[in-house]
């Protein structure tokens, strides 16, 4: 087991070992004002993106948001209509894919069917006419890295989906890229294999210290693996930040909803004082921390309260509310570790998640009292 950032024998990470903490990290990928149009549609509005050396960045968004297009532009398989792409300081905008120091792991299995596993992995090195011994070492190291030792002589058709994608990963890594691009490589696999490979990918990332740019529509996947998540929609970057950051402070209703927070509603600002807002959510009064810039009194804002922010307490018959709001459970979904309730409160229905634990699971129709901390109320820009 090697330490994070130390080169794995046989595989260099092209001099991009993660530098010691505290030193300035280089910019691995920089996109400036990159735009892309497909005949009538705009696939990408001018966007800027910076990926630091050794980072694991994920482009997250629904299908059609442009994330794959953006990835392919970095790879060189699509040309941007405007803007520039730089890899480690070098402008590669005019270079075709075969001249860029990046490699892409595709979504579908794209192993060469006429070559064995070893030959597939050695493809990149063989193009550069690497000496056989050196190439063989690389292949072995790569197979070890993806936990498929001894698979070298197998034929592509003999591999399962998970195995095939591992070989694809090994092939990309064996090419010594400066940045590794991955286009939803796990989306076609079973849940269990997917979880396993997610963990392995993270581990490989740690060991190699290589810069990863990952694309997915699965928010759980993005949050669990990435250093930074870039949420995209309709060709624009909605928000970029660490998983914790964007989860705790989604900046737009789209981001909130995409990350699974569905208690999004509008409220009017009644008063602003001491960095706090008094809000009228229509039949509901709330307080929330004021964002910057301060919304004016009387203005409308969009508010979100995450399902896990609530405390739920069942009310016995006749009891009055002990918390902030009273509601009735209208739907119960027991997931295992969590229970998802749909609670009808004045004016709306809220998703409430609670840990199942040893507490009783509330039945449909139960009157409950919901409470939350004011800090948990998130105010986003309107619209």
């Amino acid at each position, binding site marked *: 087991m090697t330490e994070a950032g130390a080169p794995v024998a046989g595989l260099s990470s092209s001099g991009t070992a993660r530098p010691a903490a505290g030193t300035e990290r280089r910019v691995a990928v920089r996109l400036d004002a990159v735009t892309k149009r497909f005949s009538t549609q705009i696939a990408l509005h001018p966007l800027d993106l910076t990926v630091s050396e050794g980072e694991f960045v994920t482009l997250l968004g629904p299908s059609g948001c442009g994330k794959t297009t953006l990835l392919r532009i970095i790879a060189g398989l699509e040309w941007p209509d405007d803007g520039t792409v730089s890899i480690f300081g070098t402008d590669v905008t005019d270079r075709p*894919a*075969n001249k860029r120091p990046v490699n892409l792991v*595709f979504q579908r299995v*794209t192993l*060469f069917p006429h070559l064995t596993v070893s030959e597939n992995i050695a493809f*990149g090195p063989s*193009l550069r006419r690497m000496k056989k011994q050196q190439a063989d070492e690389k292949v072995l190291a790569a197979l070890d890295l993806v936990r498929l030792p001894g698979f070298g002589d197998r034929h592509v058709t003999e591999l399962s989906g998970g195995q095939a994608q591992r070989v694809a990963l090994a092939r990309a890594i064996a090419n010594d890229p400066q940045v590794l691009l991955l286009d939803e490589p796990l989306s076609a696999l079973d849940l269990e294999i997917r979880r396993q490979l997610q963990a392995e990918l993270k581990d490989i990332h740690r060991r190699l210290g290589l810069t990863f740019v990952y694309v997915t529509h699965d928010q759980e996947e993005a949050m669990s693996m990435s250093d930074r998540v870039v949420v995209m929609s309709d060709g624009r970057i909605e928000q970029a930040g660490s998983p914790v950051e964007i989860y705790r402070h989604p900046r737009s209703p789209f981001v909130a909803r995409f990350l699974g927070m569905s208690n999004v509603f509008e409220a009017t600002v009644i008063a602003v004082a001491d960095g706090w807002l008094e809000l009228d959510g229509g039949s509901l009064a709330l307080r929330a921390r004021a964002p910057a810039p301060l919304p004016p009194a009387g203005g409308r804002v969009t508010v979100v309260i995450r399902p896990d922010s609530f405390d739920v307490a069942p009310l016995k018959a006749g009891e009055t509310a002990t918390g902030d709001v009273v509601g009735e459970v209208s739907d119960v979904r027991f997931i295992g570790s969590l229970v998802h309730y749909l609670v009808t409160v004045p004016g709306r229905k809220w998703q409430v998640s609670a840990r199942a634990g040893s507490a009783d699971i509330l039945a449909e129709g139960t009157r409950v009292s919901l409470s939350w901390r004011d800090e948990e109320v998130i105010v986003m820009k309107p619209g």
Partner: protein
Amino acid sequence: MSTALRRLRRRLRRRGIGLLHVYVGLLLLFLFLPLAVLVLFSFSASGQLRFPITGLALRWYQEVFSNSGVIDGILASLGVAAVTGAIVATVGTLAAVAVNRYRFRGSAVVSGMILAPAALPGLVIGIALLNFFGDIHLTLSLLTVMIGHVIYTLPYFYLVLSARLRRFDPMLEEVATDMGAGPLQRFRRVTAPLIAPAIVASAFVVLALSWDEFQITFFTIGNQSTLPLVIWSRARLSIDPSVNAIGTLMVAGSLLVVIFTRRFIAESYS
């Protein structure tokens, strides 16, 4: 239905044999029976084509192989098939690749024109070529036969190859480029090895078609004969087992071709 029949049907049903199976069996029998009879009588000792068969002998084959006319016919057929195959494979591959790879207006028209000869009966192609060769004063020979075969087999080659090319995953070329392959390397290492089997399979279709071709050859043949023509001229005169022998040889030839390319042909139906 009588109870006996019903019982039989139930017993067959249990073995998974239904009406369809019976039908298919009978149809396949129908397809192969004439050929079986043909082969059978080629080994008949007597000169009669009637049952019962008195004895088995190879005398007709001996007669056939000692006959220079038949040998010449076989060689002529092989030669024409080989040259036709080579020409069609070259021209056809270029065309199929051009239409498959490049989007250009009129590609449908081009496809249509390539496939046009298959829409006509061999008769019309044959007489058109005969007339043409007469007009340009080209003596009929194996060359003119070959020209006819090229026109005849080109659509089929194109059809089979195009179908196979469409199955080619374009992403494989992208992967190669992503790995660092320039256009030439990409072609040599990925594209060519993957479409080569398709070309070979299609070429074998051409060989088989040319080997059996009669209706066009009939008009474009000069002094030399291809094997089907040899059968024709002999069959005109009488029904004798030596023709059966030649026929059996033709069937054997086709059998060899088909078995040899079994791997390639099977792929196209998987």
